[in-house]
């Protein structure tokens, strides 16, 4: 339990020897390894930091580019919207114009069809009216009507203007006798009146011949060569039938 100086000194030497051994074979290698690893970690961290900085730069560039793209996209979209609006307005105008033209054309076609129908209806009514008048007058034909027509002929011939009379005279120019055709037999008095009137007005030197033609229905027709003076019901109905339609 006492202090042995030899042991004391040898233990000092032993400890110093152990200090050198551990420093040489333990601390230095381990510390060197740790330092190398720390340096590697620091290097890796530095590289990571550089990469992070580069990534941050790239990210900022990308975000800036993305913002530019967004602006360009917004501008392009607004231009496209404006162009689409203008095109829509143009197409609407074109469609309105086409619709107006189509409406006008339809109105014209409809008006034409309506006018055609109106004309057809008017022509049909005119035709039916003439047929009705012809049927009615045909049924009314009788000697009394013929006598009245004789009177009308005499009055008309008596009141015929001189210019017309001159034309008739020039056209006859002595070509045979005047032929008076009637639907019913004429009385002597009627024949006398007719002959005297024709002779007086047309200054015909020859005699007047009389004939019958039931197709005249009523009244008489005077043939003067190539000319005829018609005062018959059939002649009037023919004129009436050939007269221009009221529909026109």
């Amino acid at each position, binding site marked *: *339990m*006492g*202090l*042995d*100086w*030899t*042991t*004391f*000194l*040898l*233990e*000092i030497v*032993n*400890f*110093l*020897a*152990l*200090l050198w*051994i*551990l*420093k040489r*074979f*333990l*601390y230095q*290698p*381990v*510390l*060197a*390894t*740790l330092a*190398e*690893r720390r340096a*590697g970690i620091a290097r890796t961290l530095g590289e990571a930091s550089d990469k992070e900085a580069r990534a941050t730069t790239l990210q900022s560039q990308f975000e800036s580019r993305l913002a530019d793209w967004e602006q360009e996209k917004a501008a392009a979209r607004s231009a496209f919207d404006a162009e689409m609006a203008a095109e829509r307005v143009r197409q609407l105008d074109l469609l309105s114009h086409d619709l107006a033209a189509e409406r006008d054309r339809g109105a014209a076609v409809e008006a034409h069809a309506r006018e055609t129908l109106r004309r057809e209806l008017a022509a049909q009514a005119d035709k039916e009216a003439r047929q009705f008048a012809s049927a009615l007058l045909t049924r009314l034909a009788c000697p009394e009507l013929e006598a009245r027509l004789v009177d009308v002929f005499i009055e008309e011939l008596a009141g015929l203007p001189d210019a017309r009379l001159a034309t008739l005279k020039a056209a006859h120019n002595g070509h045979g006798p005047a032929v008076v055709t009637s639907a019913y037999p004429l009385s002597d008095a009627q024949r006398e009146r007719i002959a005297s009137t024709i002779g007086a007005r047309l200054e015909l030197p020859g005699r007047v011949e009389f004939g019958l033609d039931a197709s005249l229905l009523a009244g008489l027709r005077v043939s003067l060569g190539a000319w005829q003076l018609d005062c018959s019901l059939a002649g009037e109905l023919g004129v009436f039938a050939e007269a221009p339609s009221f529909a026109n």
Partner: protein
Amino acid sequence: MEAAHIVFQLGFLQITSTVVTTWGILLLLGVGAWLATRNLSVASPGLVQTALEGAVQSIEAAIEGVLPGRSGLLLPFVGTLWIFVAVANLTGLVPELHSPTGDLSTTAALAFLVFLSVHWFGIRSSSLKTYLHHYLTPSPVLLPFHLLGELSRTLALAVRLFGNIMSLEMAALLVLLVAGLLVPVPILMLHIIEALVQAYIFGTLALIYIAGGMQSQEASHASDTTSSNAPDKKGSST
């Protein structure tokens, strides 16, 4: 508890069992360190390398906690103290062997080395004059007390470790003699804990003493600088 016996005589030197055991520890630690650090890998450390790195980093962190930035200087000495004292304390668990730290000569040698190292590192951190000057602060009257403190704490360092380890071995021996074979097992487990705790205490106290020596002369230098600047401050204030 018998005293360390003389194993052989080397000239006038009587080699005791304590010295032989210490040589065995040296051999064990040296060969172990050489084998463990032969193929250190930076990229893929093995289990032993990881344990070694953990131990060294723990020692380094403990030193950094007391003296920031000085771990490179103090790591070999303090680390060797911790490792040697821990292994030497645990050697008592091996049958037929006694802990070298159960011998007052060993603990006194270690305490003497700590005593020298306190002054060595204190002088290295500044200069001899500055270091010696801190014994005169705050008053030269306190110089005997400083010297008495140096001696007493060195003595306490040696006796504390010696007393604890010797008493542990003696208690285990007494319990083994009295109670039988298996009863000393808890005592042996207590021996392991006590051995590690005593190693930690010895190394930590050494570290604190060294740190005190290095920081006391820095504090002394700082107080001198402050006192030398005081008249200027007073003058400027007037």
